């Protein structure tokens, strides 16, 4: 019996044995899931392609804006989710902290986007706990690209997710922005960027309002104003809701970590934008 086992195990060289141990000790949570619990991955949804070319009616998230300021980045998202011509939610949150030094905003199919966000958050925390150090900002943005790439088959059937990723680079000591396409392409953006249905209008506003070395408060008010312009022209983007006291979700990230901007600060910023436009009394 013993000699028989030895014959079987001998052909494995030391290099192969090392490879096997090294690949078993994965530091990536999503790799671990794909090996042991693939049904838990967001990309495990399978759709019957024969069902028709039209995508199902599911909630879609809309506009996200992000920009750098002196010593960090700010990211803001409106609160509306739409389903066809209906408003699916007025309260949805589409900007999330990914870890201590990065935030993530999502546009597109809300259900898949929220799953990807959850997986991404666990992925970063898992790496930190296993390795004892934080992943680099480029490393984080590449992991997110891999998750978006895994969603490509669903994106081809109309269930796309397009994130915007921003974080504070602790090595370079500056805020950085990354945008993605549905194939998982990752593009570093300068100064500011926006994604989602209202992004064209938001980007126009950002071009006029953004300036180098804005301070944090000014950057927050520019983000709120850019979303206001997007909501003005895009029916799928929600503006500040004075009746329900609903404001955009805004996060800032700087060298001390991320911070969710309080409702009080946002109410002040939104009321200032509305007051300024009311006083001007112009049509467009």
């Amino acid at each position: 019996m013993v000699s028989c086992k030895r014959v079987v195990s001998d052909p494995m060289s030391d290099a192969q044995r090392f490879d096997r141990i090294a690949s078993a000790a994965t530091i990536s949570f999503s790799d671990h899931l794909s090996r042991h619990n693939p049904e838990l991955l967001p990309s495990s949804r399978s759709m019957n392609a024969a069902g028709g070319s039209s995508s199902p009616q599911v909630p879609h998230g809309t506009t996200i804006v992000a920009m750098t300021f002196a010593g960090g980045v700010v990211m803001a998202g409106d609160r509306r989710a739409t389903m066809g011509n209906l408003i699916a939610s007025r309260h949805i949150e589409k900007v999330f902290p990914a870890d201590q030094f990065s935030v993530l905003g999502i546009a597109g199919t809300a259900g898949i986007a929220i799953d990807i966000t959850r997986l991404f958050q666990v992925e970063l925390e898992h790496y930190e706990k296993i390795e004892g150090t934080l992943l680099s900002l480029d490393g984080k943005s590449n992991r997110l690209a891999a998750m978006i790439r895994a969603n490509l088959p669903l994106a081809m059937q109309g269930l796309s997710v397009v994130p915007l990723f921003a974080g504070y680079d602790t090595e370079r000591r500056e805020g950085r922005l990354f945008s993605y396409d549905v194939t998982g392409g990752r593009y570093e953006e300068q100064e500011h960027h926006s994604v989602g249905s209202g992004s064209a209008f938001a980007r126009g506003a950002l071009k006029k309002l953004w300036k180098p070395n804005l301070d944090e408060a000014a950057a927050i008010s520019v983000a709120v104003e850019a979303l206001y312009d997007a909501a003005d022209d895009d029916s799928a983007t929600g503006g500040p809701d004075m009746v329900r006291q609903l404001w955009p979700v805004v996060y800032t990230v700087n060298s001390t970590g991320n911070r969710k901007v309080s409702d009080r600060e946002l109410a002040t910023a939104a009321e200032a934008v509305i007051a300024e436009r009311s006083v001007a009394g112009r049509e467009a």
Partner: protein
Amino acid sequence: MTQQFYVSPEQMMKDRADFARKGIARGRSVVVISCREGIALVAENPSPSLRKTGEIYDRIAFAAVGKYNEFESLRQAGVRYADVRGYSYDREDVTARGLASVYAQSLGAVFTAESKPFEVELAVAEVAGEAGKDHLYRLTFDGSIADENGFIAMGGQAERVRDVLDGRWDPSVGFPEAIRLAVAALSVDRSQPAEGTSGHPPASGRNGRMDNNHREGSQSASTEPADQPPRNGQPTTAGVHLLGAGLLEIAVLDREPLSERGTRRAFRRLDDAEVEQILAGEAGS
């Protein structure tokens, strides 16, 4: 065919247990202690990167003594277990009891079925919202699990460390006092340098152990007390040499991380400067 001699099951289990105990006894001790502000994990560990304590989940931490490669793979498996569970259910559904029971099962299975038992002893600690409701589980190499009250001492000097803690543990003190007590307990073998290492086998050629460069290995145990305390220890009035910050690895689980630090993750490592400040507090008081 080779001739197989009969070994009684009792003898086989005893041999394995003795083997594992010997391996654990060679390692430095670890103390996990509960107090008013949370749970402190204090380890004697000269390495700043090869850790004996670790974060498992929001309110759960891990501490171990024994062979580094073995407890490190158990720690990583614990992190995976907790993350998969929290991802597929909810974050609050990850509990120390569930994790400890999985650890107990795998330690027990290896002890009875594999050719060599794990030479490790583990502690799984979960901090509760209020003092007195913390969970401290101690797991030994054979899969035994114990729900401890107040503190856990593990490692080569566990008995003597426990004796110190037994009389002096107080659930109502804060982190500084609890950590100073744990450090005093871990320093217990330094007060009688001649006897502190007498029970240890020579332990040569065990390169898998993270401790081998200090107490064990080629360095003679009897020469260590002569040169260690002036470099790393802190002399006190009683003549006992306490471990210095450079030889300690200390982490805490905060009781209220959300209100104190704005995060749900309770685990926090103390750096050398913080440890020195805490230890200096004793000299000042």
